[in-house]
């Protein structure tokens, strides 16, 4: 299958599925469910095909995005234009663009907007996660009884948009997917949610819209920026903005002075705030507990497993690479915010009595590691340490995608049976539902960062990386693992241990639920024991991003903070 078609199908198949679902007769509920599950499965298979193509020996897709962009160069656009501001690119080696998992076509040429999809290790890992989580969420959706067709239609629409967001390499295309995604999410919460669903849904919608305004402004600022007047003459190559092309802007930011420090600081700040809402990071996180508590189980799974990752993906794909110098100016504040999120989320989680709210706050805490890992910009003298931070951030996104999906699913399981999520009322479930208990403990401990399970690598990479950036932040971030252990163990104790007669007779996991839980458990262990199953193909792309950020900062003569240890005067005793 041509890679152009493959990438396009990844979002187009669920979209078509969303329409077809509505055409199925209303009463054929089983058919609706089966069909939707089938669509998610097809999407998963497509993402696995992309994975195979990416990781194949000698795959062209492993080249950097910039290189691949050249091979897929669009023909000279808009010949009639008199202005010199449009992108001019040579047409080289067009055929070599086949099989490199990059699609690039003009879309709205007058504004230089492209239909531009591509995956590298970073986005591919998230595409796989999306495919995987959506299959599980579709399975978990079988217990939805209300307006089944509408539900699955919106669900598939959501899936299409998420896939699009992770693959888009044109800022406008990204923004379109990003915004369209809000609509199905809004309705999924507002219609199928809990008691206070309207409030939660509108809060989610408005809050995210609020964030996307910042993102939009940043995109436009990049587009219209005339170039740093003093520096452009001196060192810049023939790059002249007026493009939404992510790799091109990233390259310009890394290799030229076109985007000076000043504008980069603004761009970074705008992106950062915008994506912090989505992530969510303190203090923009309050939509999350509400949205989670109100959303139905499968939507919580999607929300925690995939949607939050869009915030992190935005940071790693846009905020940092497109404004690397500006980022290093803000890095300390961002890292501090990350640490605050970690501690704040953990403490808030500790005080919750609602099981689902607790898990929601734990997401805030865990996403703090993403910010922290990105922001620990310690590339002098050794950028590999920063590489660990960013890899840790990425690993956290995948690991959290797995564990939080699992946790929300497990909360949903017990809520369906006991009709309560109150931690003080639950108890003794280990003896009543042993399989459920065992699965829960595994996934909760994975989230707690127990070695051998996936959360460990995420936390430990981010924490270790920050040590030669700032020791205070490092110590605070490390100390947070006590709080994490505290709220997780306390939850386990209150829900599973002890003995409580109230819940005698609750049935253990059904076959369908085990089918959902098993792969989550598998990946929790696999990523913990053998992190290279992810790192081996993901981290080269992360390293490229880190390398570009480091290059940009070194070129502009500013490392982040100086290394903690001054190069000592070597004077043997």
């Amino acid at each position, binding site marked *: 299958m041509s890679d152009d078609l493959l990438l396009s199908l990844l979002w187009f198949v669920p979209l078509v599925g969303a329409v077809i679902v509505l055409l199925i007769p209303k009463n054929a509920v089983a058919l609706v469910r089966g069909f939707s599950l089938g669509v998610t499965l097809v999407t998963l298979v497509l993402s696995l095909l992309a994975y195979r193509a990416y990781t194949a020996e000698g795959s062209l897709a492993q080249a950097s995005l910039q290189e691949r962009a050249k091979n897929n160069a669009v023909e000279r656009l808009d010949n009639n234009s008199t202005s010199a501001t449009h992108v001019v690119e040579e047409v080289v080696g067009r055929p070599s663009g086949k099989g490199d998992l990059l699609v690039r076509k003009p879309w709205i040429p007058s504004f230089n907007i492209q239909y531009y999809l591509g995956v590298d290790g970073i986005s591919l890992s998230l595409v796989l996660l999306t495919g995987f989580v959506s299959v599980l969420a579709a399975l978990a959706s079988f217990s939805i009884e209300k307006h089944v067709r509408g539900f699955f239609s919106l669900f598939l629409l959501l899936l299409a948009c998420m896939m699009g967001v992770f693959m888009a390499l044109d800022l406008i295309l990204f923004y379109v997917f990003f915004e369209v995604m809000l609509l199905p999410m809004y309705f999924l919460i507002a219609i199928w949610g809990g008691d206070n669903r309207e409030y939660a849904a509108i809060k989610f919608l408005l809050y995210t819209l609020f964030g996307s305004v910042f993102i939009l402004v940043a995109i436009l600022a990049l587009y219209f920026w005339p170039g740093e007047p003093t520096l452009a003459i001196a060192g810049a190559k023939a790059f002249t903005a007026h493009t939404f092309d992510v790799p091109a802007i990233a390259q310009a930011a890394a290799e030229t002075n076109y985007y000076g420090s000043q504008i980069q600081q603004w761009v970074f700040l705008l992106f950062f705030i915008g994506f912090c809402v989505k992530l969510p990071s303190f203090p923009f996180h309050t939509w999350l507990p509400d949205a989670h508590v109100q959303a139905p189980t499968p939507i919580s799974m999607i929300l925690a497993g995939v949607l939050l990752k869009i915030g992190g993906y935005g940071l790693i794909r846009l905020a940092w690479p497109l404004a690397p110098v500006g980022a290093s100016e803000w890095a300390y504040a961002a890292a501090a915010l990350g640490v605050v999120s970690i501690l704040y989320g953990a403490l808030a989680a500790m005080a919750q009595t609602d099981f689902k709210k607790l898990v929601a706050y734990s997401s805030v805490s865990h996403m703090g590691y993403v910010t922290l890992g990105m922001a620990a910009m310690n590339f002098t003298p050794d950028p590999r340490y920063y590489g660990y931070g960013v890899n840790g951030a990425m690993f956290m996104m995948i690991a959290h995608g797995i564990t939080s999906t699992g946790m929300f699913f497990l909360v949903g399981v017990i809520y369906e049976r006991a009709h309560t999520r109150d931690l003080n009322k639950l108890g003794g479930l280990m003896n009543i539902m042993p399989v459920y208990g065992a699965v829960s403990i595994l996934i909760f401990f994975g989230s707690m960062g127990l070695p051998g399970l996936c959360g460990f690598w995420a936390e430990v990479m981010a924490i270790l990386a920050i040590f030669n950036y700032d020791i205070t932040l*490092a110590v605070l971030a490390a100390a947070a693992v006590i709080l994490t252990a505290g709220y997780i163990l306390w939850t386990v104790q209150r829900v599973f241990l002890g003995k409580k007669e109230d819940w005698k007779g609750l049935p253990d996991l059904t076959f369908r639920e085990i089918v959902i839980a098993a792969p989550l458990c598998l990946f929790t262990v696999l990523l913990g024991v053998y992190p290279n199953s992810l790192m081996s193909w993901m981290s080269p792309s992360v390293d490229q991003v880190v390398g570009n950020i480091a290059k940009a900062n070194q070129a502009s003569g500013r490392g982040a903070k100086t290394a903690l240890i001054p190069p000592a005067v070597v004077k043997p005793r």
Partner: protein
Amino acid sequence: MTWQVGLYVAAVLIPLAAFAVELFGGRILQRRNAYVATGAIGLSFVLSLVGFLTYFVSAEGVFAHHGGEEHASAPADPGHAEAKHEAGHETAKAEGGHDDQLAKSEGHEPASAHHGGKIPPPPLAWTWSGDWISVGGGMSGPQTPGLSIPIGVHIDNLAAIMFLMVTFIATLIHIYSMGYMSEDPRYPRFFTYLSLFCFSMLGLIASANIFMIFVFWELVGVCSYFLIGFWYEEKKNSDAANKAFITNRVGDVGMLIGLGLIWSSLGTFNINEINRGLRAPDGTFNKITGESGDSVILKNQETGETHLDPVTGMPHTIPMWMLTVAGLGVFAGCVGKSAQFPLHVWLPDAMAGPTPVSAMVHAATMVAAGVYLVGRFFPLFTEPALLYIAYTGGITLFIAATIAVVQTDYKKVLAYSTVSQLGFMMLGLGVGGRSAGLFHLLTHAFFKALLFLGAGSVYHAVHTYEMPFLGGLQKKMKWTALTMLAATLAISGVPLFSGFYSKDAILAASIHMVFEEGRLEHILLFVLPAVGAAITAFYMFRMWFLVFSGESRGYPEGYLEQQEQERIAREAEEAAEAAAARAAHGDHGHGHDHAHAAHDAHGHDDHGAAHAAHGSHGGHDHHHDPHPAKHAHESGPFMLLPLLILAVPTIIIGYPLTILPIPGFHPILEQLISYGQPIAVADPGNSHGLALIASLIIATVGIGLGILYYGPWPALRKFDAKKAAIRFAPIYHFLKHKWYFDELYNAVLIQPTLKLARWISGFDKVAVDGIVNGSAWLTERVSRISGKFDFRFVDGMVNGIADVVYKTGNAGRSLQTGKLRNYLMFLAVAVVGLFAGVFAWVMK
């Protein structure tokens, strides 16, 4: 990977495989899980034995004395060879001169030109390593290597000995558990946890780098958590499990900080590399003086070359102060795991777990891991760090020993004695007696495991832990009493028993530091262990006398009835709580009435069954006998055999041949440990003579007091403990409340944290979310007002948002099926149409 490494990797992985089999096959295997687990650890033991023998056969110069110059190249005394033979360690060719050893330094050119001195050979080690993950390869140039987090195995003499000890004790405890746990309904699961623990513990010992040690560190911690909370129905037990895990995590944070500092400065996790890289052949740090004070630079110890980082091209350095902090960080992990002051509080509570677990995890193996790590990573610790370690050990051993004196629960006595003994080891390490501390680790492992297993045997017979109700058990349980007596003699430091030799070595090290080096300001480092050792002898004999000698005292009048009433009251309270919760739940009225009905039904149906289950599990009803000790009987062979086997090393492991340690001779085990030890270690020299005298006085005083207070011979009973308790009431209560650590931590740490958590949760709701809701409300208001002023402005952006807030709030509420379908259909078709158009156009 050499075959020896393969051997040890297999020894680590076999219990893991057994764990997997037991976990997934548990439903089929049922009680046969026990055989899988025991077989696996037994196999690991065999492999460890083979490895141990191979190691000491191939390691040359084991019995050449290290550290002391005059012994360095002397061939070993033939007497040693015989000693080995007697001990069953038919191991090494003892002839190994200095010159032979040099050949083992693996082709490194001796850099005598640079340092002038003789370079001690690296000890034989079987190693293997690879990358677990590696990041940033080629980031700073095409050929630059990545920065890796390694996975690696490092087997040296210490690891070989530890492997043998752990697998030996673990095997015996597996066998013991087949008897002790046989009545338990979760018998198969118990062995599943044990297998996981064995894997983690062996992995910890085999690890080549501090990162992997951290990984296994947490894994043994989680196994300990599961095992402490094995009977999780009781809240007390799961509380203890939580306390253990969280307290350990506090230490682990320190360790993580140490790891971060080491890694970010030195660029490696490899313990051996750091051990040898930090110090010059004469044992001093490779110091350099920079603008911001002293730093230590990483060098190759053999060649004296500076390590240059392949990426930065710069040497790896770490400031002196940071090295101290890193050392203390790593030590913090050890403080948590080895239950040292101030994190010692979890270990006594951990006795909530089954007794075999206490013996294995919380006495012999896991809690010793902290001591092991300090010994393993010894050259990392700077002078101030070592002093801190010594004082931590001293304070711990003293506090724990004093608390043990007033405990009435014999398992708690053993728990505090474990804490105290671990303090001894830490002190030994801290004053520079590396091999002394590790030697005590090994002897302690045997006699403490024996004590705990004996305690389990007693409990199995009498079903109470309270010593005041027991007495006279030696008549009923002869073998248990005798073996425990041997262990008691060992821990009290009576000559001929293993504990004597190791405690003597520690005292020697401390005397050496305080007196011979003339650091009299640290006299406490001698006083604390001396006093502590006397107290140890006292409370251990107190325990043995109270349990085994004299006549059975039995429960006091009304005790059993009171217990019964308390149990009933507790159950009633729990039931009331449940009812209250149910009522409160009903009040919320979220329309879960249906669910309630269902639960009530279930509740009634299953009530009887639950009670029956509870009865069979917890209540040993047939023990309502007022004299628990009278009807006791000796335990069965599964439990007795391990006791008898453990008694052998408890007695002989110290020094099997020579009755009294002759100065200049070291016990074999200590000799094995000190082989190839890091050169930073000082030689305790001739302090052994002084130590010998001190030990004898200490043991006499302690045991003498024990006899005077609790002895079985009325003629010698000069003191009455009850009167003493009354006379020294304030001290008694202070000790009884364990120095009020729990109360202090609760008031200073736990409650404030919970308060902060609640405050933050409230803050989140009121302030952070308040701002959000407030601004939404404000926007709406403003839009309304402005709407009155200027109708056109209503279309403005701000108002638009408010409008959406307002309308959608209503719309969401009124969405009906019909409307919804139309709306969705419209939305979907529109979006799909849009995308499809784009798609078709793009793909053409």
